[in-house]
């Protein structure tokens, strides 16, 4: 499966390299957008020392972990939310006649290697934050766990967004708000948002488990919203539940695919 994915991704890379100018532009734009996100955080801290009780390094740590999980998914599976184009054009048919799960083929479809630039940037921010924070190393084991959890959660959200498009072929933007919208939320400590919103993204969509809950543990802090301590460790379970739901939704979507005329 993984081999097949990378084979397809490599094929698209070669296809993309056929258009060199656009390849280079994409790389530059990708890095510029990531840099803007970091700049926004730095601008906030140029005017204040703490954001909802979090220091600059702590915010960068939260940003770095969410950003790493997100950019990995954005690089490798974000094409799932473009499935409505394939549904409308009827080109999904060609994925379905091959002996490889459609999910893998669509995730790898039009793979753009230039997005890896943003993953590198997320790693750099996270490395800086970890180095500057002077973390308690007995708690650092949570960092890889939360990154993997985050990747699973975002990948599941993208799968849900894709599955939703079998029903809402004409509204891919609705699905986008799931993925890109939620990532925007995760860039800052959730304590800057209203309590009801945070409840929603903790219990309904388990976004708080991408970086917020496990991040509080790593930083050795209590939740300003007062959630109990065991919730810091629920991330993997929440990710698993979401992934199973997403897989079921995807299968339903494929089963209800209607194809196009002729």
């Amino acid at each position: 499966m993984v081999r097949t994915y990378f084979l397809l991704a490599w094929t698209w890379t070669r296809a993309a390299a056929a258009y060199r100018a656009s390849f280079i532009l994409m790389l530059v734009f990708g890095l510029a957008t990531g840099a803007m996100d970091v700049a926004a955080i730095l601008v906030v801290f140029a005017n204040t020392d703490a954001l909802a009780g979090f220091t600059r390094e702590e915010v960068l740590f939260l940003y770095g972990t969410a950003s790493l999980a997100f950019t990995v998914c954005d690089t490798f599976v974000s094409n799932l939310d473009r499935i409505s184009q394939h549904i409308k054009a009827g080109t999904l048919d060609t994925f379905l006649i091959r002996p490889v799960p459609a999910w893998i083929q669509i995730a790898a479809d039009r793979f753009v290697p230039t997005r890896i630039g943003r993953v590198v940037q997320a790693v750099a921010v996270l490395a800086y934050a970890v180095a500057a924070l002077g973390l308690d190393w007995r708690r650092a084991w949570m960092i890889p766990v939360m990154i993997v959890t985050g990747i699973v959660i975002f990948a599941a959200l993208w799968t849900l967004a894709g599955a939703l498009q079998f029903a809402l072929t004409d509204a891919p933007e609705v699905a986008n708000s799931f993925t890109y919208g939620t990532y925007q939320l995760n860039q800052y400590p959730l304590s800057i948002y209203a309590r009801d919103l945070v409840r929603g993204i903790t219990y309904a969509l388990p976004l708080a488990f991408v970086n917020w809950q496990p991040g509080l543990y790593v930083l050795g802090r209590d939740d300003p919203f007062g959630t109990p301590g065991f919730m810091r460790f629920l991330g993997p379970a929440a990710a698993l539940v979401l992934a199973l739901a997403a897989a079921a939704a995807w299968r339903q979507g494929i089963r209800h695919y209607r194809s196009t005329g002729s």
Partner: protein
Amino acid sequence: MIELLQAGRSFKVKRTVVHAVRDLSFSVPAGEFVGYLGPNGAGKSTTIKMLCGILTPTSGSVRVAGLDPSRRRTTLARRIGVVFGQRTTLWWDLPLQDSFELIRHLYKVDRGTFRARLTELTETLDLGAFLRTPVRQLSLGQRMRGDLAAALLHAPDILVLDEPTIGLDVVSKASIRAFLQRQNAERGTTVLLTTHDLGDIERLCRRIMLIDHGRLTFDGTLAELMATAPEQTTIEDVVTRLYTGGQ
């Protein structure tokens, strides 16, 4: 090889239910060459898509090579070759050769078998001149031959073709017909093809099935088809009569 039992597929279009295919039953034994005819919108493509598992039937059952296509789609894919005349399954920006190489991996064809198979297909479909050309630059006839080769690289038992000769000139048509005939005769590949070109039917198909409004209206040999309207002399006239309901 192919078995349909009262298979049906309906679609909801703005609150009304449209039956693209209804109560369709037929079976195709191994090694047969079947032409699947019908006017536009009769349900040909819907049937084909149910055979390869793209569409899930809303009623009845479909079995291909002993499998339920919609549930075992990826397993079935190894045993079936599919060609859509209206749309390519090749990678648009890649040279034909690279598409084939990718298909080799997707279908897990070992290198030796693949090479022998590709040499054979390159020869019989005359692909040599454009193996290194990106698919987007191929002419329709070349692309179609490329698509055929792609569908046959994994040596499937069943070949399903949806309008494989659409838009092709006489020479391209003739070469594709000759190739399909050879595949069927020499390898025993079961072939089911839809077409609007009655020349395909006359030259290739030992058995003809006709579908209209989602139902099977004729199933038999060419001679039997001609006998349904003894006063007509050409296959065009006979088929026109059947399509228009005996007018």
